[in-house]
């Protein structure tokens, strides 16, 4: 059905509209229907936070160093969380929650997917609701990745349960965010020539489709839908090309720190870029995957006794645990700088950007030493929540991590009442 609307659209008219940078109603044809429903959601959520960031550690967080012994506000900071001590009013630690998913690295993506790894992930659900009107519906970033994560080993999954690529080169991300004049001319050329050529492809696909039975035509409708969506994306890019966000002049290193042992260096830059992307409205949703392989870190001038994965299988050896905690604390130091940067930036309605952003820091692996995916260490920061210190849940109770996700979604103004295996929120804990 939609393709007929498309075919009646005058391409020249469309391009003119784009170059003139006026959002003519014609553009709506390309927008997903979701966007319209979303608009009303965000209106409803004027007072709430506008952004969502999720950070996931592939090898988990050592529970004993992540969970405080005490419950509530009056707790002593556990070792891993020391770096964020000064922000303690701005986050809540959750212990005992998980998605009741399978065990093992294979099921890691339960972190954002819920009980079924590889299915529509929470960040994408959020992006489909609140991300559609910004330049990037969502940003998927990674650090420390030696090889590419694919399949169920990935973190982000689209509505079609397809894993999404993660960017690991800060310079590539930056170039996409703040395009140079030279790149702009080339990109504009590619977009415009490419867009006009799409018409040809559409024509060809339609001729093909005409000879097929109805069920096959329905299948090919996915192709048309993707074409339209791509066209919409191109239109959005063209629009932003003519109206670029000012380059804040962030100083990137000469070369990307992409070797896995420079993970911390890379994370600091990625956090900075996320903060800039949120501040400039380039995106509302971002995720950062902290990959863990065999990389050996040097911390305080000392190479750790084993690689990251080796340390995670500490087998309760105190020396290995000590090194593992050092390493995880280094991750939290990067995270602390992120919180600080967000606090210093302005959000909407006079709030800080931190209050305007819900941050979920967690993992899909509860105890890497045992490959157990129960009891996932989780922390929620910012978002204007009334934070609660340490909230402990009996891991055998019927409370699910998905309950917390629903609370996050609702705080973001989304009308969402279920996620994966969860069908209720946790607003009584966090609001």
């Amino acid at each position: 059905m939609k393709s007929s609307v498309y075919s009646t659209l005058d391409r020249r008219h469309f391009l003119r509209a784009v170059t003139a940078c006026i959002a003519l109603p014609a553009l709506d044809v390309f927008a997903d229907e979701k966007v319209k429903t979303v608009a009303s959601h965000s209106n409803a959520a004027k007072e709430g936070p506008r952004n969502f960031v999720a950070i996931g550690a592939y090898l988990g967080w050592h529970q004993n160093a992540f969970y405080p012994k005490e419950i509530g506000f009056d707790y002593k900071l556990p070792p891993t969380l020391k770096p964020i001590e000064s922000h303690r009013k701005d986050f809540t630690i959750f212990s005992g929650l998980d998605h009741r998913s399978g065990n093992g690295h294979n099921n890691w993506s339960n972190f954002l997917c819920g009980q079924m790894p590889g299915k529509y992930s929470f960040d994408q659900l959020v992006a489909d609701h609140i991300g559609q009107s910004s330049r990037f519906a969502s940003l998927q970033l990674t650090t420390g990745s030696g090889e590419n994560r694919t399949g169920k080993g990935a973190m982000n999954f689209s509505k079609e349960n397809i894993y999404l690529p993660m960017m690991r080169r800060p310079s590539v991300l930056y170039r996409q965010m703040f395009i140079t004049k030279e790149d702009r001319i080339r990109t504009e050329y590619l977009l415009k020539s490419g867009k006009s050529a799409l018409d040809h492809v559409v024509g060809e696909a339609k001729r093909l489709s005409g000879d097929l039975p109805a069920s096959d035509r329905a299948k090919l409708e996915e192709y048309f839908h993707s074409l339209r969506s791509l066209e919409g994306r191109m239109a959005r890019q063209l629009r932003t090309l003519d109206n670029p966000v000012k380059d804040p002049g962030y100083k990137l290193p000469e070369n990307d720190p992409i070797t896995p042992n420079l993970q911390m260096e890379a994370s600091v830059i990625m956090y900075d870029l996320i903060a800039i992307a949120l501040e400039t409205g380039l995106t509302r949703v971002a995720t950062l995957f902290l990959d863990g392989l065999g990389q050996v870190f040097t911390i305080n001038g000392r190479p750790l006794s084993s690689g990251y994965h080796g340390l995670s299988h500490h087998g309760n050896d105190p020396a290995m645990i000590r090194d593992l905690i050092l390493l995880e604390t280094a991750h939290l130091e990067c995270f602390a700088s992120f919180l600080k940067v967000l606090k210093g930036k302005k959000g909407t309605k006079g709030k800080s950007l931190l209050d305007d952003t819900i941050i979920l820091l967690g993992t899909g692996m509860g105890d890497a030493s045992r490959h157990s995916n129960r009891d996932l260490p989780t922390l929620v920061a910012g978002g204007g929540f009334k934070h609660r210190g340490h909230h402990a849940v009996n891991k055998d109770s019927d409370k699910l991590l998905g309950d917390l996700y629903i609370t996050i979604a609702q705080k973001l103004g989304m009308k969402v009442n279920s996620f994966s295996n969860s069908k209720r929120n946790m607003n009584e804990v966090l609001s």
Partner: protein
Amino acid sequence: MMKAATAIAALMLFVTVNAQGNPLSGSRIPEAPRAILENYCVDCHDENSPKADINLDVSSVKWSDRQNIKLWEKVLYNSEHGIMPPAKKDQPTREERKILAQWIDSELTKHIKIGGTSPRRLNQAEYLKTIRELVYMRDYQLPPGFPGDSETHGFDNIGEGLVMSPTHLASYLKVASEIADLLYPQPRKSVPSKIQKGEVKDFVLSFSASAIKDGKLRLASKARDIMRSCTWPQQHQAKVSGVYKITVDGSCFKPRDGDLPMILEVRARQVSASERSVISNFRFLKDLEFSSETRQSHSFETELYKGETLSFRWKNAEFDHNDLKATVKLMTEWFKRDKRWLAAWQQAVFPGGLKKRAQISTLRGLTGWIAINKALKDPKLDMSEATLDSAETKELLRILGTVGGGTHNLGDALCHYYFNHGPSLELHGYTIEGPSKLVDSDIDKQHQKIAKQIAGIEKGDLSNEEYARKMLERFLPRAFRRPVYKKTIEAYLAIATEHWQQGHTLNEGMHLLFRNILISPQLLYRSLRSGKLDDHDLGVRLSYFFTQGPPDGQLAGLANAGKLSNDKELKNQAMRLMPTRREHPLVRSFTGQWLDTRALKSIMPDPKFKFADREINIATAEVELFFLEMIKENRPIRDFIDPDFTYTAPYFADRIYKMEQLATWDERKKRSTRIQRFEIPRGSRYGGLLGQSAIMMTTANGVDTQPVLRGVWVLENILGMSPPEPPEDVPALTPDTRGTTTPREMLAAHTKKRSCSNCHRHIDPLGFVLENFDPVGRWREQWPGTGKEIDASGILPDGTKIRDVVDLKRWLIQNEKIFATNLAEKLMVYATGRDLNYVEEKEVQSIVKNNLAKGEGFRDLILDLIASETFQTK
């Protein structure tokens, strides 16, 4: 015989089926079956309150409704297998059941057509191979994060499940652009020359390949594994291909006689290269000789290609992680020379004598060196075993001579000796200046050749339009895998000519054309024409089935000549494409998905199992070689379960499978990791699918075993049944690594709670019977930690009692049709890209029946499946 299967299957029928459409518009149910339905079924399944939403109180059936087809398939199934009516109700006679079955079968056969694969998007592997062949780039890699495919019916090449998403199309467009950039590049722009200086802190440190001492970076090993020997600039890469001036500052640390000159080998590495690369993956640039203990500078000019940086290795170091023989020799002589050195190593590796050795993996690198060094400095160091012929020395040398011992752990520890005491080649820094001029990399030149090959002609004096037409005439039929109409060529040509009329360059026009062709649905999809496959589509189906790639010249030629649909020719071609190597896609991709061995790479077993990449590769190879042999030797299907041969490495046969025939082997031979064929007695607990390490690993999680997951796996992949999804609120069991309870105790609830036991009494025995295999498939007789004897016994759904995996195998052989049908159906689903319907299942079943009756083999089965109507219909 089929009882077990059906009893289990009965549990799976939880699907609710909608009531039928308007009965008036369908065909009437004849008197006899109608009476049977009225007598036995409609009491529960009536119009007003249809149980399970199934209404059988109808006088006619509209067969064009797919829901009705499904409904009556179910009725037939449940009646044939005695599932319905329920036991406590009146039962139809055998004769009555037969009448009902005959009527349903004839209607279903009449109304269900063979075929119905949805347009099938190329999956990631198929797309990659297709692109590689199309543009003659054998090594082309998809951009990072290229989207994957979801699995449907267990495979990632099913039309219905291969979703096209905006992410996919954007990625296809990206690939198209990337390739067009390579083939039809923009004119090069000049780049200003730059100087980049690196200091000691700017080198990459990986494992124990290098260390910083006294403000210098020291190297120790010449291993071919770059992560054990090499260093490279952390933050440099050539932005363009060009000539660069390289300066390296180095010196020799404590060289001995004969160590000079020390040779520093400089190679060019792709910045994006894996840490697991070996040195030969990198392009050799230059050997630099250092002979002085003070800082010395060497400069040279070289070409660096875009995306490359430098890599440094001490080429003539005495130590080489990868040369285990040399390591043993080196250490033997060293121990002979220096008894204290020997005693210190013994102290580190055997702190409590031979019986209480340290875990070798914890001695890796610095930790190991600290232990050795501490012993060296200990005035009370025990020297009593420090002779060359002591048992400790022999064991120590043995460990040093093993993969892991010498190549990783103790080898890395030894490196630290060199870092501290020399000899070592030291680096102080580097300078990279350039580019002084731009060059075409070898790759650029290669691409110019490819552009010519694609068009079949050089541009020369041809007009843009003539050139593009030649290219299209040659390229489009290859891209779309069938001849194309002239008007299609003209339509594409128009895209380029319009572009040129607007003043764009030749390459820009060609670039645009390419971007278009590579996202055409005719390239991205197959199964686009209904009905029986024509010659071209048959070639495509055959080719992707065997190779995951487009038809080669021979197939395309036969299709063009209309000869491929000839049965004999098709069989010839199938024989030609049959796997001969384990890397063959039908072997690798099919087994990887059917048996889930694909997942092995992401399991990351606990280090205590000592299963690293090498072991996982052996495990995968075992399955692949076994499957390959089944085809090559045309073995009977039952040999998948209980063969008289197996493929494994002695190291595995001994440690994992504990095969008796290795008992008499000498220790050295037992350690071999070379995979070979073993003849084994039938009826063994090892051999066959249900005993291979890979399969036991993929059904566990790397830390402990989970009988339920294994049970479900056997149901799905060996017996061919799909158990229902587990209830949502039940968590996975947390591994009890302390081992206070046995898995049987943990799962006791399954048999107690009725809601669980309904399914689990069928699932769990199939999992428990495999409990003798630990999470990596090692044979064990006790549950870890508890010290309790493993109880693997159980009762199969047909009442057969089994004690162990040998009994299960025997049962599977007695019921070989179950497994054979499952395998044949899986192959057919994989080949056709669709779930099989009633009629297609019937065809496959008759092929299997024929195969078993005639005593034919696995290759015959594949050929018969290809010859079937099911295979040859869209």
